[in-house]
């Protein structure tokens, strides 16, 4: 690693979107010829950061230096001209064009300035594919006919068709089987030997150990650790950085008596092929059950299947002993289930509407007679529900988009409170919620449980699950590997369970 100016140096990068601060002063240094790994949970800011690097987002503040000189990346073309190529997780290939056409998209070799020289394009594509260890891919084939792994190779060939100095790879191994992952690592090795820098994003710590040089960990839009040695940093430390908290939170106290009584939610041998294996679960009124696990462990899929938004391949869900019709959200809602989904904006909120209408949307029959809405009653009910959760501002007529993340989440909770729901499914309830507002949200969730709701909580943040839940189920790759009262677990134990199988040093 050269000691002089690094190839790329980003400092103090911030980027805000309405209602959320995606990047909050991120620093990142990348040396020529190194594999720099970016780690972080969903929503930590990785995608935003690489989009800034690819010229797809312009940062609000912060500087980007390339070979020590300050640059601005106004567009993807500007980034490409510098030699920055990005291979996105959702591959951006045109399915109806051939491999060669995709590789040269936007910079086709031409004769007389506009006639595409197809033979030249095919020949150079063939060379690139050979260099990538896949000479068997025919440059003339349509990309739509290729396997996921081959598409990945084509995407990489496209990156290499430019004079590239830095390649960003977003979860490149996600769609690959082990053989192909080996080939990918060989390619990465070849590239770095030529002095190309690779920014490598993955959730798989084993991979980072194998090919990474240094690691930067992102959390809540900040780099919580930069330039850690990839091979020697203990796994537990890395995971703790990803999932742990910088601030100690005050979690509400658990009731002394604990929950008893018949379970309101019972999940029996519920499974979805390829997502999670059969498991059992019971939640009693007044109880908070937590599901802990990393990204890809099947947490959200489990919640959405219980809720009927996905159809299970086996098993059943019972509410008050009655079996729910599988794959029907309406049946679940009618039985008293409510979901606060992970992607609040995309899955829960009507962004053009007021708080009132967002809160009342699931219980419109409550204040309507023959389809006519009593708007006074609606507003009063929404106001009562949002007041109960101390939603700010205390005016349900304001548009929901003007609210902070924490208050938007409260609006979602108010929706189910108003509906009179009995089982609350919370998927990453504090995602995109300001650090200061979290303790308040925890208190709200505990109070709802104390009032008799059954709560099933999913979180990638181990301290959140341990601090809030009464009982914890630990998930690893779609399997429940452990179940215990939260008091009997600590963070290290859970992290070991979550990571089990990878060498914990």
């Amino acid at each position, binding site marked *: 690693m050269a000691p002089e100016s690094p190839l790329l140096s980003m400092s103090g990068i911030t980027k805000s979107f309405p209602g959320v601060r995606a990047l909050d002063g991120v620093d990142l240094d990348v040396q020529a010829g190194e594999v720099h790994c970016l780690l972080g949970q969903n929503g930590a800011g990785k995608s935003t950061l690489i989009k800034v690097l690819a010229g797809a987002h312009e940062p609000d503040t912060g500087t980007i230096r390339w070979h020590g000189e300050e640059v601005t990346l106004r567009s993807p073309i500007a980034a490409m001209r510098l030699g920055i190529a990005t291979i996105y997780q959702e591959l951006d290939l045109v399915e109806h064009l051939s491999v060669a056409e995709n590789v040269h998209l936007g910079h086709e070799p031409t004769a007389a300035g506009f006639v595409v020289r197809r033979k030249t394009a095919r020949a150079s594509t063939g060379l690139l594919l050979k260099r990538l260890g896949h000479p068997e891919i025919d440059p003339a084939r349509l990309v739509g006919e290729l396997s996921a792994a081959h598409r990945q190779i084509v995407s990489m060939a496209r990156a290499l068709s430019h004079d590239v100095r830095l390649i960003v790879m977003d979860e490149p191994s996600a769609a690959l089987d082990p053989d192909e992952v080996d080939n990918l690592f060989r390619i990465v090795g070849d590239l770095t030997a030529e002095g190309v820098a690779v920014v490598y994003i993955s959730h798989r710590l084993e991979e980072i150990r194998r090919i990474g040089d240094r690691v930067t960990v992102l959390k809540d839009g900040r780099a919580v650790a930069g330039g850690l040695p990839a091979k020697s940093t203990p796994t537990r430390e890395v995971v703790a950085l990803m999932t742990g908290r910088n601030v100690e939170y005050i979690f509400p106290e658990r009731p002394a008596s604990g929950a008893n009584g018949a379970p309101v939610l019972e999940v029996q041998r519920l499974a979805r092929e390829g997502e999670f294996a059969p498991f059992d679960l019971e939640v009693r009124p007044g109880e908070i059950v937590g599901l802990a696990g990393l990204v890809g462990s099947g947490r959200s899929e489990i919640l959405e299947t219980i*809720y009927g*938004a996905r159809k299970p391949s086996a098993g059943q869900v019972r509410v008050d002993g009655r079996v729910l019709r599988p794959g029907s*959200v*309406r049946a679940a*809602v*009618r039985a008293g289930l409510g*979901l606060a*989904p992970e992607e609040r904006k*995309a*899955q*829960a*909120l*009507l*962004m*053009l*509407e007021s708080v009132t*209408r967002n809160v*009342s*949307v*699931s219980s*419109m*029959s*409550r*204040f*309507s007679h023959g*389809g*006519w*809405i*009593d*708007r*006074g*009653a609606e*507003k*009063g*009910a929404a*106001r*009562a*529900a949002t007041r109960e959760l101390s939603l700010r501002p205390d*005016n349900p*007529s304001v548009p929901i988009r003007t609210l902070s993340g924490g208050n938007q989440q409260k609006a979602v909770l108010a*929706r189910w*409170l*108003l*509906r*009179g729901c009995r089982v609350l499914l919370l998927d990453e309830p504090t995602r995109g919620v300001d650090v200061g507002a979290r303790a308040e949200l925890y208190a709200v969730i505990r109070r709802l449980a104390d009032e008799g709701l059954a709560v099933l909580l999913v979180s990638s943040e181990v301290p959140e699950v341990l601090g809030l839940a009464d009982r914890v189920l630990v998930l690893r790759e779609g399997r429940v590997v452990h179940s215990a009262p939260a008091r009997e677990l600590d963070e290290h134990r859970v992290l070991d369970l979550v990571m089990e199988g990878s060498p914990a040093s």
Partner: protein
Amino acid sequence: MTQHASPPRDNTDKVPSVGQLPVWRGLLAHADVRTLSLLGVLVALILIGGITKPDEFLDTRNLQLVLTQASVIGVVTVGMTFVITSGGIDLSVGAIVALSSVWATTVATQEYGFAGILFTALIVGIGCGLVNGLLIAYGGMVPFIATLAMLASARGLALQITDGKTQIVTVTGILDLGERDSYVLGIPPLVIVFAVVTVLGWLILNRTTFGRRTVAVGGNAEAARLAGIDVRRQRLYLYLLSGLCCGIAAFLLIILSGSGQNTNGNLYELDAIAAAIIGGTLLSGGRGTITGSVLGVLIFTTITNIFALNNLQSDVQQIAKGAIIVAAVLVQRRTASTT
């Protein structure tokens, strides 16, 4: 929290809500900048008409004519506004109007008199809407494609029924409705139907659970589904509603022209979409305004009338319409980005 009773008004809050204000203040609070600017445009057009052709334009008969012409397309636009608000589109409205109008005026149908014609026009409209709705909501077809297919086949069927001939209506009850004798306080019955459809449409969109669901589905279909709304059924109902509006419009057209023709309702889909869009309904869904749509229809119809009175050809009209659509959308984009 579990009671149905509406909360007492007096102690809910100190800040007065819109619902507690006098009606006119409430109306003013609802009339946003966009609606007011549309009203401004309409007033300006009326001034232009009054200045260029003071005698003809402001003549009662001419104003009755403008409103009558606006009624047919206006009813279609109300239905279209619902569909667009839900994030959909209905390209088949013109063809459905044509098919309804010819089916309702066949010799066989006319034998059943007034009721037969009315009933057939509505049923054919609803039937076409049902096909659209089933294909889109349960067949998973994109609204653009499903309604495009309906456009083609309904037009074709209309041609097949008429064999290209104009079907003259002989039922006197129908023809009478087009006569001046049946005007109520100087208002043609067609305009009364339009007014009723508009008021009902406004109430349904703004005051009922049906309207709320429409807006929710258009604003965020996934969020609506996860909130427990039956998104597919709602989509089906919306295309049924649009079809019903086409049936009503076809009936009005039969009264107006005293006949049924397979060329009826030509390009209504474009006029209705254009009126809804300049009125302020979002093409991407999630926001719709009946008031805006009706103002859009009145603006277009008034322009056509002024141009005709000034002996300007229809090609100039078309260009002017296009320019107005572009101007309206550009102005909306600007006001949207500044607020």
